[in-house]
């Protein structure tokens, strides 16, 4: 088992190395000098360009630049072009802001998707199944930003609560807490909708797959009640792949939130990425790309290990 984990970690580190090279190359494959990224901007004078060149060591050979860039990133000396703050510091700050959104969204996704999917599979072909199937397709197909505006119109008109931003300033005590909660509701519901739809479909098909197995027929044949067959024999085995999906949640922290965080002016990582992209703040963009990759790789590592622990059929050799 330890050998399996170590081998897996070494593999993932190599993958990460390749991605770090790739994302570094994106910058250099882009047309023009990275320091000349915004030549029309009057604020960028020749000595600013000089400073940019220096901060990226553009006068040195590419491999040296690569090493220096990641050295700066990991030692926390890499600073943003836009505000001069250390990149790691601002990413960490935004990460903490994204976290409540991410946790609420994930909890919503998992608590809603499973009962829906399981019930649809148990009542296969029935009215409930067909209704949830259509709703799931509807939610998968609706653009998140469109749904966001519909919800904003409804919530603002009907409930009269503020929804944009993270909080309303100047409140204390209970109203302040309620205010935070109201601000959290819409963005987290929105970041959960597509997940609920996709996951519940997946749970349904996984349940159906297991229900067609021979041991389910055996369980029925020996006279067990339908509930025991569904929830004890089928469900436990259908759960297997989802244990591993815990690991796949991490990457949603950055990529999935750009649009939602922009609409709700939520100062999280996605918003940081969006602002950095608009300002062509290359140190921040590259760092976010790489940190995103670290999150995905860590997620797959966790999945692999969980999978090996839960599923006895996976061999460690």
């Amino acid at each position: 088992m330890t050998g399996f984990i170590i081998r897996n970690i070494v593999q993932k580190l190599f993958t990460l190395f390749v991605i770090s090279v790739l994302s570094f190359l994106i910058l250099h494959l882009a047309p023009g000098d990275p320091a000349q990224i915004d030549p029309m901007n009057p604020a960028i004078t020749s000595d600013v360009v000089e400073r940019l060149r220096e901060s990226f060591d553009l006068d040195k050979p590419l491999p040296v630049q690569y090493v220096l860039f990641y050295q700066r990133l990991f030692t926390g000396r890499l600073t943003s072009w836009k505000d001069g703050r250390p990149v790691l510091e601002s990413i960490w700050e935004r990460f903490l802001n994204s976290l409540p959104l991410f946790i609420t969204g994930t909890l919503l996704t998992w608590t809603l998707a499973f009962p829906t999917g399981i019930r649809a599979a148990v009542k296969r072909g029935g009215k409930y199944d067909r209704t949830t199937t259509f709703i799931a397709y509807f939610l998968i197909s609706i653009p998140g930003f469109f749904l966001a505006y519909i919800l904003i119109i409804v919530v603002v008109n009907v409930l009269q609560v503020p929804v944009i931003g993270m909080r309303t300033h100047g409140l204390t005590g209970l109203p302040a807490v309620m205010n935070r909660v109201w601000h959290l509701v819409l963005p987290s519901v929105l970041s959960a909708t597509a997940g609920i739809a996709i996951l519940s479909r997946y749970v349904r098909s996984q349940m159906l797959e297991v229900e067609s197995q021979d041991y389910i027929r055996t369980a029925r044949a020996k006279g067990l009640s339908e509930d025991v067959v569904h929830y004890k024999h089928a469900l436990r085995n259908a759960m297997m792949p989802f244990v591993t999906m815990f690991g796949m949640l991490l990457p949603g922290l950055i990529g999935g939130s750009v649009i939602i965080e922009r609409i709700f002016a939520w100062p999280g990582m996605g918003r940081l990425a969006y602002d950095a992209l608009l300002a062509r703040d290359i140190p921040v963009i590259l760092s976010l790309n790489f940190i995103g990759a670290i999150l995905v790789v860590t997620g797959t590592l966790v999945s692999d290990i969980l999978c090996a622990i839960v599923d006895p059929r996976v061999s460690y050799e």
Partner: protein
Amino acid sequence: MSEAYDTTETYEAEQSEPVLPARTPLQESWRLLRQNRLAMGGLVMFVLFFVISVAGVFLTTEWHPQRPPLMNPRTTRLPDKLRRPLARYNAEALRDDQRPLGGIYVLGTDSLGRDVLSRMLQGAWVSLTVGFVAVGISVLLGIVIGGMAGYWGKWVEMFVIWLIDVMLCIPRFILILTVLALWGPGLFRIMFIVGLTSWMGTARFVRAEFLSLREQDFVTAARSLGASDIRIIFRHMLPNALAPVLVSATIGIAGAILLEAGLSFLGFGVPEPHATWGKILDDGRKYLFDAPWLTFIPGVAILIVVLSFNLFGEGLRDAFNPKLREGEPA
């Protein structure tokens, strides 16, 4: 006794005509598809969307410098800004060449008085081409890469599996945004970058199919007749592996259209003044409460198109599913 029985059996089997199935697999799939009302609805919507987009290109393109297009999505009419759908045009305040087709704003106007209908028509073509070209690129890449892995195996396969793992570890949306931010936005760039970052699913399907196909007798037969690798891959194996590819491509188009709308919405889409659905929605953001049609018209349009592709794709999946075919055990 038993020997004699066996010979008659063989004899009879040789004598009797080969029994052809009542329908070809394609006919059977079509029959299954036709029973699925949601999928057929999706197909109809798709055909409608295709016709509208093509019509949109003809109606909104300036074919000749002297002759303005029938519906000009660029005409700004400040006196007529933010008009409701079906509003009449203000003949006194506007010149003749600013008149919308039919003298009526069927879908209203935006904050610059541009006709939303003509902008939607112009944007339909963008959605359609981005969907098809991006998915075309990704399917082509997926077939070639997955096919090589499944056919040759060994180190090619190991490399492809590793490459797929690496590609899946790159945060896709951020990567696409990064490329568009550094290179600058553009229709072809979007198609390429979306295609280049979405071939992994297809490659996996094709590899899995090829792994089982290459052991089949007809492939051995083709090889023993001296067919080249390329011929075996494309002529003999690929047609047998195409069903799952077709399904994932249909659903991929839905995803690509949604992705393009998201990119346009974030301002990384096709540059101005070309209209796209995502951009129309983004423009309407500031007038959400005063001019909700600017949000709802493109939003509903994207929803319908993406939904119809998803439903049609799922219908195809069922239609190609051998478990659902007639006469075979479920």
